[in-house]
């Protein structure tokens, strides 16, 4: 399979990461702007790479390790770009981009099979179910990163020995708001994805099954993130406690995405 566009997007993400980091230390507006533009270009390039793959397999590229990881990296980048534009804050770009780069590198490293796997499931509703589900995971991943940054910043602030980056990163309040926005995106996306999944399953089998471990894990995810969104309404829970809850919640996301997919479910085993 031709990976040229993947390499282009990887290079653009790497350049974007470089400029985000420079922007963090030099605080020059044009550097931040360039980083955002490069990120947007990387997202566009990867979109076309995914589109090419989708055309080849006649389905969204989720059912092999390459497609799954590449789609995930793309959605993380896309979600982050949305958050950045919404909150007008570029300081955390240098921490999110390595995550995107890592997943994209892994995707390229596993090299997609040139033999086209037969699509096990297809259709617009199914495509939306998968894509929006992965969007939810990527939004939770970003909220995890933001929560970790929050906890580190909070620790540094309390220790009273701030370094250079401390003065550059966003305020705790903004980090918390960004994390909350990201969780809201993930939570709604997961609800929509789950609903589409149920509808699609009903069309396919005539009934809705909740006994599948993946479905149970998803419902658990919805519950724990709803819990997070509920506790952050109370000022007494805001701050480090909420960040810790959010960071811990991500362990369940990882569990659902990896262990459940690989070992507990056959219905939702993608790769």
């Amino acid at each position: 399979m031709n990976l040229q566009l993947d390499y282009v997007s990887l290079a653009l993400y790497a350049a974007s990461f470089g400029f985000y980091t420079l922007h963090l230390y030099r605080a020059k507006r044009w550097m931040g702007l360039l980083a955002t533009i490069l990120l947007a270009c990387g997202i566009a390039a990867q979109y076309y790479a995914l589109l090419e793959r989708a055309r080849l397999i006649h389905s969204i590229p989720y059912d092999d390790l390459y497609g799954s990881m590449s789609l995930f990296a793309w959605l993380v980048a896309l979600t982050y770009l949305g958050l950045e534009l919404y909150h007008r804050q570029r300081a955390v770009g240098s921490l999110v981009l390595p995550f995107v780069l890592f997943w994209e590198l892994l995707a390229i490293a596993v090299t997609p099979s040139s033999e086209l796997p037969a699509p096990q499931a297809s259709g617009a509703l199914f495509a939306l179910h998968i894509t929006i589900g992965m969007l939810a995971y990527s939004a939770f991943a970003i909220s995890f990163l933001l929560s970790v940054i929050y906890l580190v910043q909070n620790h540094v602030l309390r220790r009273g020995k701030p370094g250079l980056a401390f003065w550059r990163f966003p305020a705790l309040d903004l980090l918390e708001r960004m994390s909350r926005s990201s969780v809201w995106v993930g939570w709604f996306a997961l609800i929509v994805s789950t609903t589409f999944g149920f509808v699609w399953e009903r069309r396919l089998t005539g009934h809705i099954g909740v006994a599948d471990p993946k479905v149970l894990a998803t419902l658990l995810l919805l519950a724990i993130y709803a819990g997070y969104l509920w506790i952050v309404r109370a000022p007494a829970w805001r701050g480090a406690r909420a960040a810790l809850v959010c960071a811990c919640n991500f362990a369940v996301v990882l569990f659902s995405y990896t262990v459940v997919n690989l070992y507990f479910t056959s219905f939702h085993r993608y790769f």
Partner: protein
Amino acid sequence: MASDSIPNASDRGTRGRVEIALIGCNHLTAPVELRERVVFTPEQAVRAAAELRKTGVIEEAVVVSTCNRSELYGVAAESDQSTPTVMVSYFSEFHKIPKRELDGRLYQHVGHEAVRHLFRVAAGIDSMLLGEAEILGQVREAYGRALEHGSTGPVLNRMFQGALEVGKRVRSETEIGTRPMSVALASVKLAERVFGNLKGHSALIIGAGSVAEQVVEHLRLREIRELRVVNRSFERAKELARRMGGEAFEWSNLERLLVQPDILVTSVSGSQHVLTRTMLERAMAARSGRATFIVDLGVPRNVEPEAEGLYNVYLFNIDHLGEIVEQNKRAREAEVPRVKGLIDEHVLKFLAWQSGLEAAGLLDALQKRLEAERKALLAAHLAHFDGISDADRARLEQLTEELVNRIVEMPSGRLRQSRKLRRPVEGLAALRELFGLDEREDAAKPSEDEKK
């Protein structure tokens, strides 16, 4: 900034050697008692620059005066070693301070050292507070005033524009000015690390102290929503509140007042803690656990240290803040070599431009000199040629004129093309001397005997 191309001599008039001079004093050379006597108000700065130009020695002048420095920048009309002396005399007369009192208090720089000094000032590395940002604005104002009143010329325009560019680059490309260097500013910056934008937040000032007042000034600049003041002496609280633009409260209201504000600044003298952990626990419960930022400026501490462990309470005492300021100071000092690198780059750029200006003047002077020689030679010899027609005379005139132009054209072209040739200012000075271009024009004219 203008390009590095060689300036057009005709635009600026023929210039010989450009002599930039600077005299002045700052916090390092003069005590505050002297500095406050040599301050120039904006009106005085304009007048001084105009008067300096009237002396005939100075062609361009700018006065930079702040609380920590008073400096005169001048460009001599002619190359003159005595320019700084004239400026010192004027400085002494203007402020009515005997010269002997200024001995050892004033620094003098000429040429590239004067340029470097101005660039250092604009970069903030010559300031009392390393990397302070205000000085750049003060230099801009001083230059703007001089420009408006016509006391600057091409040299000082270029030099001050260069200084402003250096200042801007230093602040955007280095960390010299990013971290807070005072306890008051560090407090407010730390509060911003917690709350982000402070607009819409409220503060309570407990007690009175100069640092607390500075904190309030910074909070005011950030458009804090509400400010309350509480002090053991209600009269003093009212006085402070009036000055700070806040609301005064009796000391008995202290615990009740803790509930609402997000930022607490305490500066109370006394051996007992003003805020105990229990008081803050109750306040935090009453405010539903919303984050509170506390700056304890008291010595001994006003806030019980155990309060530090309370959830969502960010407590900083004077030692924490002092340590942060010290760290920041070290970080700023570590940036000085980078700043100096930027300054060097711009000094070289300016010197190249200055050499260009001088080169243009040199070529202009050379052409005039050769032209004078040509005319004198023709006048002396054509009279002896019998039977020369007017047409031949005109042709001879044209031929010699073309010869002069060709002689000047080659070095002129090379100077325009090669920046290297323009750099060594001293080399240009030597050339002027070699061709006798600094001699008076009448001296260059042929004597009557020569004509005969």
